[in-house]
């Protein structure tokens, strides 16, 4: 298999979709720029024409609404928001319209739309050039949300999203753009709603989203040297998310960390921890841990940024504490069992 960068895999998915299906078109800000959306759309306008690659006015609302209208009229649009922060100007079309349409019309209309939301942060960009808002959209019935972390998934999930038949928010983090991995040349789909176990382990489950998946693998390598065997699950789809994969893993490891590089309160991690608490409470031998961003806007100064963002080291620290707690629980339970046995004897 060829090796591609994450950004190249996204571009290849666009190119193959545009090349194979006349209903597909792409609309959004920065699409004719060689750098505005990284290199993920480089020269697509030259290859497919500017009537199918529409660099749009600074109108998130109308652009997204128009993509919905085109989808309802039979097209397969991809609307691109180069920064998720700015996409908030399109919340009405996304939440009130795209997500509702199938339901409110009793299944007689559908919105086969991909809303590509790019997370672009770090580098002292600050509060309005940094946000990862997946949880807001995960909350809304009728929307699907995917967050690929590898080049393979970046391509396969985009193709799956275009043909899902529902509005799918496809979130790519520019921190992943230079990552490399194997990508088949042909078109393929990665099923929406299926997680991937990136590393099997016995001691603790780390469920990670997007950019935190490679960080979790780094953390697992560090922890392995300490004798802690980590199972890493790359969630890939945030909604629907792969409950059975996560629950099976927690029943095996009896410990859970969820790493999501977004705000903690009401976040993706909160939802997963809540579900595990409800459906697999008995399996946990220690309280679950969330490794998330603090509930604060991103600051610009590099020292504040360093304090704010999370990485492999945060997962390592969380795992060490969690394992200690788990062992203590195990010891306490064993001791009380021994005592009970002694009394009974």
């Amino acid at each position, binding site marked *: 298999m060829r090796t591609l960068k994450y950004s190249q895999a996204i571009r290849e998915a666009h190119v193959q979709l545009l090349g*194979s299906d006349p209903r597909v*078109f792409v609309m959004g800000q920065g699409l004719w720029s060689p750098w505005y959306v990284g290199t993920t759309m480089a020269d697509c306008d030259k290859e497919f024409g500017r*009537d*199918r690659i*529409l660099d*749009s*006015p600074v*109108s998130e*609302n*109308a*652009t*997204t*609404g*128009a*993509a*919905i*209208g*085109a*989808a*309802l*009229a*039979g*097209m397969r*649009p991809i609307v691109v928001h180069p920064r998720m922060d700015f996409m908030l100007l399109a919340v*009405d*079309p996304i939440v*009130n*319209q795209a997500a*509702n*349409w*199938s*339901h*409110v*019309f*009793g*299944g*007689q*209309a*559908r919105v*086969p739309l991909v809303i590509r939301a790019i997370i672009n942060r770090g580098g002292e960009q600050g509060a309005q050039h940094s946000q990862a808002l997946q949880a807001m959209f995960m909350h809304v*019935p*009728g929307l*699907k949300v995917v967050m690929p972390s590898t080049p393979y998934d970046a391509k396969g999930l985009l*193709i*799956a999203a275009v*043909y*899902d*038949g*529902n509005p799918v928010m496809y979130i790519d983090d520019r921190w992943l753009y230079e990552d490399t991995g194997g990508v088949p040349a042909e*078109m393929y*789909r990665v099923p929406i709603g299926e997680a991937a176990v990136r590393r099997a382990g016995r001691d603790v489950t780390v469920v990670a989203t997007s950019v935190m998946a490679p960080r979790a693998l780094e953390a697992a390598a560090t922890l392995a040297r300490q004798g802690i065997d980590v199972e890493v699950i790359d969630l890939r789809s945030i909604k629907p998310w792969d409950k059975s994969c996560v629950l099976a893993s927690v029943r095996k490891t009896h410990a859970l960390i969820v790493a999501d590089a977004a705000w903690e309160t009401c976040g993706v991690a909160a939802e997963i921890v809540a579900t595990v608490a409800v459906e697999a409470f008995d399996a946990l031998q220690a309280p679950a841990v969330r490794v998330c961003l603090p509930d604060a806007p991103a600051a610009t100064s590099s020292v504040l940024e360093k304090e704010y963002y999370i990485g492999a080291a945060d997962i390592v620290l969380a795992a060490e504490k969690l394992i200690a707690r788990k062992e203590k629980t195990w010891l306490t339970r064993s001791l009380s069992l021994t005592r009970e046995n002694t009394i009974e004897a």
Partner: protein
Amino acid sequence: MLRIRYFEDRVGELVEAGQVKTPCHLYIGQEAIATGVCAALEREDYVWGAHRSHGHYLAKGGDMQAMMAEIHGKSTGCSRGRGGSMHLIAPEVGILGTVPLVAATIPLAVGAALASKMRADHRVSVSFFGDGATEEGHFHESMNLAALNQLPVIFVCENNQYASHMNLLERRAKDNICESARAHGMPGYRVDGNDAIAVFSAACEAVERARAGQGPTLLECRTFRWRGHVGPSWDLDVGVKRKDELRQWLVCDPITRISSVLVQRGVLPEALHQVEEDARAEAEEAVEFARLSPLADPAEMRKYVFASDAEVI
């Protein structure tokens, strides 16, 4: 127009009788606009509406019984009991959706027009909205996007002078909705919205431009909402001004106007009377159909949240 009038009269009565609960925003007094515009369209053309869209649905050819059943929350409704009065659809005649979020379908209409342009299928997309919608960003963003790409879309603003209880001049500095067209680089016309023929003529010109690839048009159709913002009341509690205005507008009833034109042109009063009788009977049959239809099935409450069948590549 009579079909719309009698349908809505019946809906108003059903609301008063407590037999209909879903919020119903009546179109009575504005019938000439939907009728005039839709008469200029083909079946394949797209129509988008808002919260006050019973008239658009009927004028474009939507099934009356399915709408009445929808208003009653029945499984035979045009949205299978999920939409009520404010979410109407009839894809078979080009009504791609009406929703109550003010101005929300304006960009959707632009998108459908974009699809038509890409496919070169010569369809026209019509967006119906009220004067309140022109205060939303959706309106201006959409006008710009449509003009920039020369899209086959017609923006039909039904200026009925009121957004809920607020008169136009309480909401904007000037009574100049039509001028937005010039600002966005498209023609705009102020039309007597109670004159079906004037609306029809203006719509024909706009349709012709759209089909010829000459881009969008704004039609500001001046009219008046007879009834309250929602429900059948006359809404006279919102101010003396409204009461005086209503008195003036009632004598400009669009149906009376078109009827006298037809009689002048030789249509027999008996023929008009027959049309009236047929419209009444049709509305009554729709009520009967709705009453006899089964309610939506609670077990299927989540059924349509997602479309279930993905496409094969």
